[in-house]
């Protein structure tokens, strides 16, 4: 079963705009991760935020985590055409597994 659900399913923006994607999950977690997938390729890890953290930054990425609401958001600032991809959240509980969400397809137009 899928733990994470991303919202929106698809997002189209212009270069330079910010893109925000949300992820909701159902159970307590150890950490939450965001991955990126270019069309027809494998996934690439972007950022990990632990359950005791509220916000984390990496370059143009900003991730927030609200464990009381069981939700997370990924913000990509000053988006570029090269950011066009699908973005997935994945939740880690206290096992050897990650549970992936359904993904947000981001299209950035030049």
């Amino acid at each position, binding site marked *: 079963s899928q733990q994470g659900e991303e919202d929106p399913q698809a997002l189209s923006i212009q270069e330079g705009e910010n893109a925000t994607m949300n992820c909701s999950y159902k159970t307590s977690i150890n950490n939450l991760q965001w991955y990126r997938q270019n069309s027809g*390729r494998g*996934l690439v*890890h972007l950022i990990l935020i632990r359950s005791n953290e509220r916000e984390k930054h990496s370059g143009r990425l900003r991730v927030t985590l609200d464990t009381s609401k069981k939700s997370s958001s990924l913000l990509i600032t000053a988006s570029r055409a090269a950011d066009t991809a699908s973005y997935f959240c994945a939740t880690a509980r206290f096992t050897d597994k990650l549970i992936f969400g359904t993904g947000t397809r981001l299209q950035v137009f030049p």
Partner: protein
Amino acid sequence: SQTIHQWPATLVQPVGSPLSLECTVEGTSNPNLYWYRQAAGRGLQLLFYSVGIGQISSEVPQNLSASRPQDRQFILSSKKLLLSDSGFYLCAWSVRGIGTDTQYFGPGTRLTVL
């Protein structure tokens, strides 16, 4: 540095034929290994994971099986493919004992069953 390989990259097979997809990891020892399937435009479904040689956990009942004959080799197999086995198959690894940490993915195999 660590690298993960998958082959073949693409595969077209008839219904009822056997399947063998291979995944190998270089540059690390004792990894956790994972097989995922991704249907078109969908998220990832965990199929199998392994924490050591010969140790396989199956997540969903299905027409597929997995084996880990060597520490850094993970094989996905089927005796008879079904149409529903079509999809994008991804192998991944993570550091042993830290299964909740980052996973590193291979390039994937696109399987089409006709």
